């Protein structure tokens, strides 16, 4: 039983561990990943120009003093919902001709406990993981320490995971 609890998947972001995941039969050379680097570059520019990586903007958001962050996140979600609806409706494929697959996430208590803990960290640092990378790029070098601490937090979670309620 112990191992069964341990091996239960509660993190659906590592898709290669997802039981319903079909590995792509296409084998690409490594430089095909450059397209994700380019996507990341655009994303990094947007994060900075939207000021969503700003500690000040996050403090405003959690004090209900500005609509900005709610507008950004809300309109991003609406855009995402419409995009996925279109993808599903027309059964669209990737640029490599494979079917786009979306997998469900199941509920576990980690989404509540972990969610609250992340909320604490988000307010303190004014940054979620994407902005940590963006802030470092923008020249806030001390955030490297915060990022290393975040990696340490992830590692400690992995280490004590089997003892935590899920």
């Amino acid at each position, binding site marked *: 039983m112990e191992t069964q609890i341990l091996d239960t998947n509660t993190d659906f972001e*590592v898709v290669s561990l997802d039981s319903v995941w079909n590995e792509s039969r296409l084998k690409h050379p490594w430089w095909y*990943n450059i397209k*994700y680097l380019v996507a990341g570059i655009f994303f990094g520019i947007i994060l900075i120009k939207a000021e969503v990586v700003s*500690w000040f903007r996050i403090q405003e958001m*959690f004090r209900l003093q500005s609509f900005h962050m709610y507008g950004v996140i809300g309109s991003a979600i609406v855009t995402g919902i419409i995009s996925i609806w279109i993808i599903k409706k027309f059964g669209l494929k990737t640029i490599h001709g494979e079917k786009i697959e979306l997998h469900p996430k199941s509920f576990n208590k980690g989404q509540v406990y972990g969610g609250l803990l992340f909320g*604490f960290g988000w307010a303190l640092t004014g940054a979620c993981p994407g902005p940590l990378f963006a802030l470092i790029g923008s020249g806030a070098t001390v955030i490297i320490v915060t990022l290393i601490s975040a990696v340490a*937090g992830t590692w400690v979670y992995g280490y004590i995971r089997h003892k935590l309620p899920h």
Partner: protein
Amino acid sequence: MDIIETIKQPWPWYVSGPLIGLTVPVLLFAGNKKFGISSSLRHICAVVIPSNISFFKYDWKKEIWNLFFVAGVVIGAFIAASWLSDHQPIQVNGKLVTELAGYGIDDYKHLSPADLFNWHNLLTIKGFIVMVVGGFLVGFGTRYAGGCTSGHSIMGISNLQWPSLVATICFMAGGFLMANLIMPFILKL
């Protein structure tokens, strides 16, 4: 060159929000990738310090795209901060300015306050809690929750996954509690 001047100003939410949302289909079309940045922290653990922990024993090479993406975020942020910025102070709500002034925070030149986020402050209790403990909670909490603002709030809700909505509500609840009830004491330290 009006367009360059416009780009250099902060972008309004109705421009930046939809652009962020478009990351979802862009990654799906590029190769069936699911938007989610916090998993990069798990991959870094899997690459650097797996330490025989089952949670980090997987073939991270299958997820390497994610590390390319975050490397891009660093580069993109550098480009935006270096060449696409008007270097004006950040405009925030006057009430926040008044409150933060009480904690000695009045430098709005950078995205994060230089009065708080600097190397010297790492060795103070306040700076340690904000930068190091805060970072730890971000890494621990996002993985415990199985995602962050991108993976749950944007990707998960876009795919109409109710557990992602629960997670997002908890992110916000945690943030409200910390910012309004706990941080005033921390920032006074």
